[in-house]
């Protein structure tokens, strides 16, 4: 292509040198310019198309939702369309969802910095408490929502390669030398904080011995080979071939299992934590005329149709009887929640800060 360009240019230069008689047109130059401007204009038209007058559909109302990483599919494919249909039947209005999905810590930081989120679904209540700390929320207002703001749950499980080549049966096996663990980063991922509670708490519940639990947590973290920004990013890393095991939400695995594309195997620990995901409404970002719509959406999240969608996508509903409809939920003999560890503020202080950050991290040299 470059060659032909050169050829043409030489020719056109020759024309120049000969001094084109007046009235004769340099067709090549003209063609090239026309093509260039046509391409530019069509590119501009393409970019502007949805905003051109006449092409715009009737004005739609919008809700801005920020969610933690693994919620992407269930919200985009399930909950949003369901609510859109519901709202249109009720009011005749179209609703558009403006959404962003990333690690729970990431979106919490973004909300603190001022992104216009009206509703946020956080992986853990701790991030909601941070919003109170930073005065984004006037107080623990999510506790007034159904189930104290807990939308759904999912236990933390171990994902291993097909055939379980490393013979992993429980969290304790992850501390064995030679096992490569892919772990999300607790700095930005809510899932990572749940995982730490699972790794420590499962041993604590079985043995009741803090020293043993510490050894298990330390052993697992010595084996961490990759840290990703969110639970979803960690799964992508694992799928791309990093490590031997991934500690993640059961939902992540079930979603793929239901679509017959899970290229790994689930190992259910004897005891593990059920993560509880918190819905937060952010009043300062909601204009008065939006209030009714946002409230309707939040109420819809706990409605039976919505909860059924969550179950279908592998989340465990807060309404226990709905969970029977998903046959893939595994059995966990001894599940626990963060309230068994004294609630998030205490668990954060005693386990994540004092044990993981101040004792485990220095020991593994990070």
């Amino acid at each position, binding site marked *: *292509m*470059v060659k032909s*360009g*050169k050829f043409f*240019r030489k020719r056109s*230069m020759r024309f120049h040198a000969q001094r084109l008689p007046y009235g004769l047109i340099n067709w090549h130059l003209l063609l090239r310019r026309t093509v*260039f401007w046509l391409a530019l204009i069509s*590119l*501009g038209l*393409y*970019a*502007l*198309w*949805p905003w051109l007058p006449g092409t715009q559909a009737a004005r739609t109302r919008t809700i*801005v939702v920020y969610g933690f*990483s693994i919620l*992407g599919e269930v919200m985009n494919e399930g909950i949003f369309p369901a609510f859109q249909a519901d709202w249109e039947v009720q009011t005749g209005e179209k609703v*558009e969802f*403006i*959404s*962003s*999905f*990333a690690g729970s810590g990431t979106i919490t930081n*973004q909300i603190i*910095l*001022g*992104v*216009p989120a009206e509703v946020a679904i956080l992986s853990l209540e701790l991030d909601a408490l941070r919003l109170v700390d930073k005065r984004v929320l006037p107080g623990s207002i999510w506790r007034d929502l159904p189930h104290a703001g807990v939308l759904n749950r999912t236990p933390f499980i171990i994902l291993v390669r097909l055939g379980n080549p490393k013979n992993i049966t429980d969290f304790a096996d992850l501390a064995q030398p030679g096992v490569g663990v892919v772990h999300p980063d607790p700095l930005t991922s809510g899932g990572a904080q749940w995982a730490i509670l699972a790794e420590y708490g499962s041993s604590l519940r079985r043995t009741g011995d803090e020293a043993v639990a510490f050894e298990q947590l330390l052993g697992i973290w010595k084996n961490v080979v990759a840290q990703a*920004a*969110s639970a*979803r*990013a960690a*799964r*992508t890393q694992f*799928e791309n071939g990093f490590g031997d095991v991934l500690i993640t939400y059961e939902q992540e695995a079930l979603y793929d299992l239901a679509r017959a594309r899970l290229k790994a195997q689930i190992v259910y620990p004897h005891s593990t934590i059920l993560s509880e995901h918190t819905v937060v409404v952010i009043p300062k970002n909601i204009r008065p005329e939006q209030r009714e719509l946002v409230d309707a959406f939040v109420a819809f999240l706990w409605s039976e149709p919505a909860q059924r969608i969550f179950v279908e996508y592998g989340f465990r509903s807060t309404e226990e009887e709905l969970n029977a409809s998903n046959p893939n939920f595994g059995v966990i003999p001894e599940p626990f929640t963060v309230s068994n560890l004294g609630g998030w503020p205490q668990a954060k202080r005693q386990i994540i800060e004092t044990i993981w950050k101040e004792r485990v991290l220095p020991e593994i040299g990070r």
Partner: protein
Amino acid sequence: MNAVIPTRARRTTSLLPVSILLVVLLPLLLMPLASIFIFAGRGGLASFLDALIQPDAQFALRFSLLIAFATALVNAGLGTYTAYVLSKYRFRGREALNVIVNLPVAIPTVVVGTSLLLLWGPIGLLGQLLEPLGLQPMFTPVGVLLAHLFVTFPYMLGAVKPVLDELESTYEEAAYTIGASRWQTFRFVILPALRGGLFSGTLLTFAHSLGEFGATVLVSGNLRLRTQTAPLYIFAQFEAGNIETANAVAAVLATLSFVLFFVLLQVTQRQTERTG
């Protein structure tokens, strides 16, 4: 002009160095780029187009193009003006200003994003003053535009200022002596000489804006259908494990960059031929 063309005597000996270069470049540059297109083609055209017509993908591409157009437009004006002032006026602090306006080249784009947040964000120096007025540039298209203007500022300057510096001042002086105003001199003497530089500078700005990631990821809030640019979309989809979707947009972005680069190459070649 024919005399400038290098002799072909050494051609036979160039086989070895050229093959070494190719062997090095193949895994370093060519294969990664090719893999985007190979991967895009693997699922078939239907699934490729299917990934592209997703509303999010369409929005991301359009939004990126609009921001790139706006950035190119603003910086073409601002960059040319800056180049003109720095080149034609002598004043104290000119050297310092010259360094400052070129600074964005050296600053990591993530730092640009951070600095913008710390200025315009709700906790920022100016942002705190704007907040009570209900103005909030960050996490809106305005924030993205601000970031892109910052990051791409030096490209226009780099394309235009050298031409201005080289420009014979005799033409301008001649224009002044026959009574042309500063504006007339600029419009009819300087601007025509700048055409090539203006064009390539604008194109460079456009291309860089199209691919900007580091600063955008911080200031945009990454909202789909509102502030998500094409590179952010690719990153988000890739992180979410939707590699085909991410790759489809990546292929489009890569193709656009190739075309832009090709046009740029043509223009600069023509310029050097003209001046040389």
